[in-house]
């Protein structure tokens, strides 16, 4: 379990993290969302035991990061921002080093190293200095050292940054596979990632925790939630047909691709009404979609809102 209590970090006069409290239980994959400079990385650095909090506390599996730092660090696998590693070492030597620092010896060390090499597909680069590897491989080496000791807690700062779409998919699969019995905290500014791996999302801006909910709950806050979008050959006729539906509050047409979005009145379901109206009028549509809500819009609304309390 990770538990933070009013975690705060000041840099001089600047407050990077301002009283953040949350709990994460095993099985949860918590996504840290927020604009650049919001305090995501600083929070993670404090949980990982790199930075000391100015105020407040954090506990990892019951160990306080300030009073029992070594025990706390043993529970954590940490991927720092940018996935740093010792460039002159080969991935094999680097993993050997981390394994030794983690107290893995003998057969367990060989087994774990072979396991992470396989999971992150590092076989082909094991003997090359890390400096000479591509960004994707460097990131995977960083991930490999984080999961090497099979920790109960993983703290991953932008684990998929710099990976190509295939590699991103692989890393997300890896995270999903590990998520069952672990506590995983990842930071990202890629919103699709929240859907792909997280079952809980926390939005941070200006050092404050502004929302804490499941991705689906966040989508409900979008004005697109339960809206219906469609693309019709005859946009004018479609709009005309929709405007007669009582439960529709407003209709917007995208000036770029003429895609029509109809927003329901509060709490109303309009999908069936829309599809029946179109059928009745014989209006051909090339696609028709019920929107779940748009995370990017929710994200913008929450993070750009003037500094008012919007706690979930």
């Amino acid at each position, binding site marked *: 379990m990770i538990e933070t209590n009013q975690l705060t970090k000041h*840099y001089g006069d600047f407050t990077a993290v301002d009283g953040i409290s949350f709990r994460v239980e095993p099985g949860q994959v918590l996504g840290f969302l927020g604009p650049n400079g919001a305090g995501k990385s600083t929070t993670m*650095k404090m949980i*990982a*035991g*790199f*930075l*000391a909090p100015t105020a407040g506390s954090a506990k990892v*599996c019951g160990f306080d990061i300030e009073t029992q*730092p*070594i025990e706390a*660090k*043993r*529970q*954590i696998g*940490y991927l*720092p*921002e*940018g996935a*740093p*590693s*010792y*460039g*002159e*070492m080969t991935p094999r*030597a680097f993993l050997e*080093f*981390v394994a*030794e*620092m*983690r*107290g*893995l*010896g003998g057969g*367990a060390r060989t087994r*774990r190293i072979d396991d992470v090499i396989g999971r992150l597909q590092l076989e082909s680069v094991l003997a090359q*200095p890390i400096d000479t590897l591509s960004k994707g491989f460097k990131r995977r080496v960083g991930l490999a*050292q984080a999961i090497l*000791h*099979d*920790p*109960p807690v993983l703290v991953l700062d932008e684990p998929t940054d710099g990976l190509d779409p295939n590699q991103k998919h692989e890393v997300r699969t890896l995270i999903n596979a590990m998520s069952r019995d672990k506590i995983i905290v990842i930071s990202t500014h890629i919103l699709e990632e929240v859907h792909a791996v997280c079952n809980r999302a926390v939005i941070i801006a200006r050092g404050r925790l502004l929302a804490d909910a499941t991705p689906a709950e966040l989508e409900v806050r979008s004005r697109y939630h339960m809206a219906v979008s469609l693309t019709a050959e005859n946009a004018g006729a479609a709009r005309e047909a929709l405007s007669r539906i009582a439960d529709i509050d407003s209709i917007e047409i995208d000036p770029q691709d003429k895609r029509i979005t109809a927003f329901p009145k509060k709490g109303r379901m309009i999908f069936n009404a829309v599809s029946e109206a179109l059928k009745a009028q014989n209006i051909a549509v090339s696609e028709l979609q019920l929107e779940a809500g748009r995370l990017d819009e929710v994200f913008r609304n929450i993070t750009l809102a003037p500094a008012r309390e919007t706690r979930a």
Partner: protein
Amino acid sequence: MNATTTTPMPANPVLTIFRRELASYFATPVAYVFIVIFLLLSGAFTFYLGNFYERGQADLQPFFTFHPWLYLFLVPAVAMRLWAEERKSGTIELLLTLPVTMNQAVLGKFLAAWAFIGIALALTFPIWITVNYLGDPDNGVIFAGYVGSLLMAGAFLAIGSCLSAATRNQVIAFILTVVVCFLFLLAGYPLVLDFFRAFAPQGVVDAVAGLSFLTHFGAISKGVIDLRDLIYFALTIGVWLYANAVVIDLKKAD
């Protein structure tokens, strides 16, 4: 396997860091360049400036005399990367989030750098063979000279390690270290003492004079291994390494 259920007995982290660091010197040309230059310069100083042959004495006094000046530039070159590079590449975050205390990390890195300089120093053994071939030197004095030289290198290195933690720029770390080491070298000489005499009471001036590397090294290299000189270097190393840990703690957030 789960880390909570099978709390593994960690190997000594100081030793692990020590081994990694020492290996990293030899993974790049840096080590070889350093060793070659150290050997070339120490030889050139001994024979040309120290008049090794002309003196007609079977000892290594001309060899050791120039070590402080050699170290003044070469040790900061080794020390400058110690923490500045960790900070610049971000590996400091990786290192300090492993289950290791700050003191262990500082000590492991310091000892590796010290051992590296020790290797370079040990490779000067041909000059010891030469002097034994040519004459009949007091090998006890020579041994003391090597001990003193290594201790002084350690003191330079501890200063450099601390200052390297204060910046992520290796050039700045190098220059700062050279300046501070220079002041410590000459602490017993008018250049430094006159500055303190201008405002400090005599007690302070005497204390500063007692900090001189040259005085302490000179005593040891003449074969007089005085406990006070050993303690002096050990304390100097200890104090600077302690400061090193404090500086890392203060600056790691930047």
